[in-house]
């Protein structure tokens, strides 16, 4: 069963990188669904968690290299916020390998394709995402 990947790509660098990968005929797995965001720091923790709730098996956030950010400090915020999210997800017992943060500039089409390949194989190794889907608050399990 092919895994579903959601990639949040920042408009200025990674999205352009993905574009470049396309124009230079580099292919990367089709299961990757790209969502364009103005900056990597626009990715709220809820976007990632909701993506998992709605059936994603892996989420990767791509942004500009530190220092290249069009909004100058966007990727620093993103890095701070997402490292905390990833460590909390690991602490709660979710597979840390299903989430990833990568800096890809507009010129690195090859790196974009390679990163997506590596990430898809990594997530496929883990298989379908069951844990994120079952962490239900059963809201009222019967009395003990």
């Amino acid at each position, binding site marked *: 069963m092919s895994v579903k990947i959601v990639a949040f790509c920042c408009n200025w660098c990674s999205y352009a990188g993905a574009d470049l990968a396309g124009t230079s005929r580099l292919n990367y797995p089709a299961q990757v669904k790209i969502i364009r965001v103005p900056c990597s720091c626009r990715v709220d923790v809820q976007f990632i968690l909701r993506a998992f*709730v*709605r*059936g994603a098996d892996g989420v990767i956030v791509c942004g500009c290299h530190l220092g290249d950010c069009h909004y100058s400090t966007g990727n620093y915020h993103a890095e701070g916020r997402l490292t905390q999210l990833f460590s909390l997800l690991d602490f709660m017992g979710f597979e840390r390998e299903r989430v990833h943060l990568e800096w890809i500039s507009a010129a690195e089409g090859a790196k974009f394709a390679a990163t997506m390949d590596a990430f898809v194989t990594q997530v496929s190794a883990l298989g379908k995402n069951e844990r994120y889907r079952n962490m239900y608050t*059963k*809201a*009222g399990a*019967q*009395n*003990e």
Partner: protein
Amino acid sequence: MQSPVYTCSLDNVTQLINRIAEKMPVYGDFGSSKTTLSPKGFFLPALEKLYETAKINDSYKITPAPPENAPFVLLGIRACDAAAIEILDGVYLNDPIDPQYKARRHASYIVTFACETMGANCFCQSVNINPAAPKGDVKAWVKNGTFFWLAQSEKGERLTELLLDLLERTIPAGNDLLPVEPPDSAPALPLPADMLSAFNAPVWDNLHRACIACGTCTFLCPTCQCYDISSHECTENSEKTHCTRQWDACLYPGFTQMAHGNPRPSKKERFRQRFMHKLVYHMQKYGTSACVGCGRCVNKCPVNMNIVKVAHVLAQEEVNAYV
């Protein structure tokens, strides 16, 4: 004809439970005190699906969720919870009857257990419930080392037939075999007689300020009946949507929020509604107050607000009448 009282020794009570468990699932036990969550969740679950809709050639096909009528047994229900189930029956089992609730309720066997002592924050005696004489399909109690079992309903008799070889019949010799009633420790809960004077009482202005409107008391309360209905897409395929029913609390701001405004705009009105419904409105509509004195809200309220204090302050009595 009053069905006979059966007994068995304490140590083969677990045998009784296992025998029942072979026939149907058993929840709860004859434990030391009442459970944290009330048995309400067995009849009105915190989250349940009402129906599913699928869009087929431009019209909605609606499939209601099948009613759950697999039989199950609730063990060790106390007098307060048994009375609470009756209060919920009054709401959900009279016209128009709620099919989901009715299916679960008819499939349930309630085995109650008499309390020998009053819990720290129990006050069922203040709402004239006798902790030693709980209702329910079967009443069980322990007295000087023996376990007693008395069927109180036709369902109770059916349950007793499963266990006849494990139980011995006793000659019903007066009430020295009956469970002893714990001494009455607290005065009766004063219920405001007149609705309008209670509603307009000035005490609400200061009384509500400590409350953080979190809803814990309503979710733990065995008689809180309010629910919310919401409809949303399935995650698997968005053509299908399901409509769910989940617990709701009058304390939440969105409870009565309408497009053109909210009749209960601030926490004070919502706090007042919670206690007015419990102590006054339910009394006027069904003849009994909806509080069974189980003390769960007293025990688990994050800021130690509780219904006994509100009732006393509402009746203009000094709060620490018996602190």
